[in-house]
């Protein structure tokens, strides 16, 4: 167990690689109850939440979620969030565990109208991910899951437990994130494991969650994105909807867009033995040019892969780089992402 933002979290149950492979080929079950939930309710809820994030809840349907940046006035990430639109009067933002209090304070300070409510202690969250996730959950619910598309959600019961059933995840596989009352989470966990046993469902920990998301180049807050990096630098321009109107951070972001970004978050593969790790220097012709933000041996792609910021001129696919691994420059190359296809 490790301490993760004050939560006791298992890094692994049986082994990172076995859990990773189970998610890619069958299904894995993650307890991600540490994630925070912040709610906007009442007249003007949608406008208020929308004024804080880069993506556009206005063009989403009820029952649809969007991935978005919550930015500071410099355009850097206060957090990355998934915003759920229940209705124009009800929006729920799922935020990172370590940012719960910071996000809540920021939203409270910057909301144009409706004040947010921190509901983090009212929800547990289980993520069931993998190609067999849907059939496993379907055995426990009357909701017609085939009608819930990616980034859509429904409220219903799973194994008798009232849940928000969201077709979202952080692994690159199909699957669901289930938000439920904390006192029912253990029952839901056991029911899912039981229902999925013959299909190969296994409990999965933080370690597999990290290798799975790294193979997809999904950003991890605090590693790949933070207060000092913008969505444009992080390759997340698609979560910025310029035609939605004002949002916090927009002027700074627009200024950066007009002059062009100076650095970009790229994916690279090692071309010599060695594994890139968070914090290692990225070099070019012997000069330090950036830093690795995430890296691992990818269990599915079977290569040592990494993510990091480099000057825009070095961000093109195929660009050779060097990663400083314990004082030794090891050859790497910028590649197309996601690493896993």
């Amino acid at each position, binding site marked *: 167990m490790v301490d993760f933002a004050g939560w006791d979290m298992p*890094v*692994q149950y049986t*082994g*990172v*690689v*076995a859990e*990773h492979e189970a998610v890619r080929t069958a299904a894995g079950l993650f307890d991600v109850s540490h994630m925070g939930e912040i709610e906007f309710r009442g007249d003007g809820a949608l406008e208020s939440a929308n004024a804080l994030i880069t993506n556009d809840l206005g063009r989403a349907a009820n029952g649809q979620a969007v991935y978005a940046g919550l930015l500071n006035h410099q355009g850097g990430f206060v957090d990355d969030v998934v915003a759920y639109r229940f209705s124009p009067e009800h929006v729920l933002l799922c935020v990172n565990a370590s940012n719960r209090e910071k996000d809540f304070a920021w939203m409270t300070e910057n909301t144009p109208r409706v004040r947010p409510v921190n509901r983090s202690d009212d929800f547990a969250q289980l993520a069931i991910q993998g190609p067999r996730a849907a059939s496993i959950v379907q055995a426990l619910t009357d909701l017609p899951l085939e009608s819930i598309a990616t980034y859509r959600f429904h409220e219903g019961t799973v194994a008798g437990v009232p849940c928000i059933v969201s077709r979202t995840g952080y692994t690159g596989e199909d699957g669901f994130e289930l938000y439920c009352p904390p006192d029912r989470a253990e029952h839901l966990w056991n029911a899912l494991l039981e229902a999925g046993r013959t299909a190969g469902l296994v409990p999965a920990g933080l*370690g597999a969650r*990290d*290798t799975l998301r790294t193979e997809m180049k999904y950003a991890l807050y605090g590693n790949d994105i933070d207060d000092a990096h913008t969505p444009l630098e992080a390759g997340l321009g698609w979560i910025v909807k310029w035609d939605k109107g004002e949002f916090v951070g927009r002027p700074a972001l627009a200024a950066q867009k007009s002059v062009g970004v100076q650095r970009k978050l790229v994916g690279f593969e090692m071309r010599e*033995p*060695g*594994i890139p*790790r968070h914090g290692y220097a990225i070099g070019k012709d012997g000069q330090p040019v950036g830093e690795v933000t995430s890296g*691992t*041996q990818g*269990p599915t792609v079977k290569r*040592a892969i990494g993510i990091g910021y480099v000057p825009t001129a070095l961000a093109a696919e195929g660009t050779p780089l060097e990663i400083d691994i*314990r004082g030794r420059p090891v050859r790497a190359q910028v590649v197309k992402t996601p690493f896993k296809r």
Partner: protein
Amino acid sequence: MAENPKNVRYTKDHEWARRDGGGVVVGVTAHAQEALGDVVYVELPKVGDAVTAGSPFGVVESTKAVSELFAPISGKVTKVNTALADEPSIINTDPYGAGWIVEVEPSDPSQLDALMDADGYNELLAKTAT
């Protein structure tokens, strides 16, 4: 967990050392591989490199962590387990056998006697278990 064999000596850093003819074979313990998790990369010294007891001589990496290897004894590397380059996971599956890491020609074979025996190592593990 696998039993810790009687015929090897142990360090507090969870390496083992076994006399084999004139040489000493070195690896990491069952406890070490379990704590590391799936080993995905091993950085080995070269044959002929000098190693010093208590000092790093290589690196083992799992999906989740990077750990230095500390030499149980001083001497010169005479063999490295090249099979680890293609299949580092044998450290997980057979830490005291096929998962050996290097063989060292000891400069002072009596250094082995200063290391823990299996009973001493089991005691250490029991004490550090939470």
